């Protein structure tokens, strides 16, 4: 999603509008700007793919892992977050994250998307309509908070959840997205995050860890069975996440060309590698390759390749994938139990750890040949140790800022409306108590 990618367009169909002074301009129709219909087609598709990642992808991935009594409540979290964030993004989110030129936060001119006219174009994506760019970014803004739900499954109040989503979007996601992608200081400093290793995954994972700690453990953990009710849903969800992730990563090229192609390849290979690594580790340790392990490994690979996908070649992608599968297996299955926090569906274990790992490995495996304009000196392997340091900085800053603000938001909610359901509601299930419905009625 680095704007510089756009300058790599090598084909003839479109004309690059270089260096627009203002971040967005609405053209009079007579002097209508030239956009590229192929780029636009791919970005329309990418936007809907990333939406599909959240609903039904993530919704099913998570819902398949919970017990029967909480399936609908888990689906409701992804669906509800999608709706709340869509409206907030229109009201203020896009304006704060992707307009204006301050280093810390965007501006207020795009509140309610007032200036978004038919022919507006953002300088951040000069070959497509701004409407499409705004929409593409919206889908990222939706899935990031929605991911947090994995950490707080089975025990959070729905009202508190929706308020949490809203506050977190504006106070955590928008600033960090602005820093890295919207023209802020981290992007300017040269940190590489192609599609959201820190902005999306480490960010959501960190928030999940904080939320898991502040909510406390689920009742019955360790003594009752928490076996997933229907892993078939998780397999559907993981598959749709995989398919949709090409919108995420290859879509972050913002154009339909060479960069998108390479990002797609890197994504596919890393994902498969990570799934195999997790499977192999589990097969060796627990003697059986679980289906949950295979799909979790795939998601770990998708997460870890996200920041790197526009900067590495096929071999780099494979190595990142293998590392992600093994490391996330350890963090989700072993570290969690050692430290005893209840990250229910492994939001931190997969997204936090995988996102940080991917961000750092981007600093190792980035290649000038793959992205001459955005990574002109490559990563550590090509001698550019500085890039690795920058990546570590990016990880550290994201973790600290996110953890602090997330804790503050949840603290306020806790002392006001409360964040956790009563013990009886938890025992009987969220579906019937919060939503008045059950599956398999």
């Amino acid at each position, binding site marked *: 999603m680095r704007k510089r990618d756009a300058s790599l367009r090598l084909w003839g169909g479109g004309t690059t509008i270089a260096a627009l002074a203002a971040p967005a301009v609405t053209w009079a129709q007579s002097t209508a700007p030239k956009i590229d219909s192929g780029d636009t087609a791919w970005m329309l598709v990418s936007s809907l793919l990333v939406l599909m990642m959240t609903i039904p992808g993530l919704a099913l991935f998570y819902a398949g892992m919970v017990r029967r009594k909480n399936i609908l409540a888990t689906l409701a979290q992804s669906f509800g977050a999608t709706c709340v964030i869509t409206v907030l993004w229109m009201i203020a989110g896009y304006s704060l994250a992707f307009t204006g030129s301050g280093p810390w936060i965007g501006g207020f001119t795009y509140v309610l998307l007032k200036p978004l006219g038919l022919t507006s174009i953002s300088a951040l994506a000069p070959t497509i309509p701004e409407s499409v760019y705004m929409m593409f970014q919206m889908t990222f803004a939706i899935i990031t908070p929605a991911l947090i739900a994995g950490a707080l499954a089975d025990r959070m109040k729905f009202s508190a959840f929706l308020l949490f989503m809203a506050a977190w979007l504006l106070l955590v996601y928008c600033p960090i997205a602005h820093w890295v992608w919207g023209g802020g200081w981290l992007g300017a400093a040269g940190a590489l995050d192609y599609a959201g290793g820190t902005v999306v995954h480490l960010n959501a994972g960190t928030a999940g860890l904080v939320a898991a700690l502040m909510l406390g453990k689920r009742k019955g953990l360790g003594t009752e069975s928490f*076996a997933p009710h229907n892993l078939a849903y998780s397999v559907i969800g993981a598959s749709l996440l995989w398919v949709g992730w090409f919108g995420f990563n290859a879509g972050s090229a913002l154009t339909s060309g060479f960069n998108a192609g390479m990002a797609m390849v890197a994504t596919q290979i890393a994902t498969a590698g990570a799934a195999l690594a997790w499977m192999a580790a589990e097969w060796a340790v627990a003697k059986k390759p679980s289906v949950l392990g295979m799909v979790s490994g795939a998601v770990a690979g998708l997460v870890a390749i996200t920041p790197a996908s526009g900067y590495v070649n096929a071999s780099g992608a494979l190595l990142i994938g293998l590392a992600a599968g093994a490391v996330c297996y350890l963090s989700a*299955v072993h570290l969690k139990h050692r430290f005893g926090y209840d990250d229910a569906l492994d939001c931190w274990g997969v997204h936090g750890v995988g996102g940080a790992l991917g961000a750092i490995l981007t600093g190792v495996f980035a290649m000038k040949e793959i992205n001459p304009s955005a990574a002109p000196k490559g990563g550590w392997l090509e001698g550019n140790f500085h890039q690795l340091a920058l990546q570590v900085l990016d990880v550290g800053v994201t973790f600290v800022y996110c953890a602090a603000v997330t804790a503050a938001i949840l603290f306020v909610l806790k002392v006001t409306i409360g964040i956790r359901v009563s013990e009886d509601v938890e025992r009987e299930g969220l579906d019937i108590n919060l939503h008045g419905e059950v599956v398999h009625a």
Partner: protein
Amino acid sequence: MKLIIAIVKPFKLDEVREAISAAGVEGVTVTEVMGYGRQKGQTEIYRGAEYQVNFVPKVKIEAVVTDETAPRAVAAIQAAAVTGKIGDGKIFVLNVEDAIRIRTGETGVAAI
């Protein structure tokens, strides 16, 4: 009349039903149940958290039969359900005081 309750391995259901029919039993009612006995289930690991799956799937077959048919029915079930491996299940016999066929209102042995 007797109520015969047999708890058997699920894949034996069809064989048992046939055997019991052959023994002259006209009707049975079957329930999916979970059993716990000598066969103990297994330890499951879910995301690194070990827990004991204590129950193994079984089916419960209930048939009300006349006093005369009972021994024959019990023997038929036992013969059909046995595999010789742990977890084969149990048969229990209880006394039934009355039976009514809902459709006709018949009672007693005429009803079963």
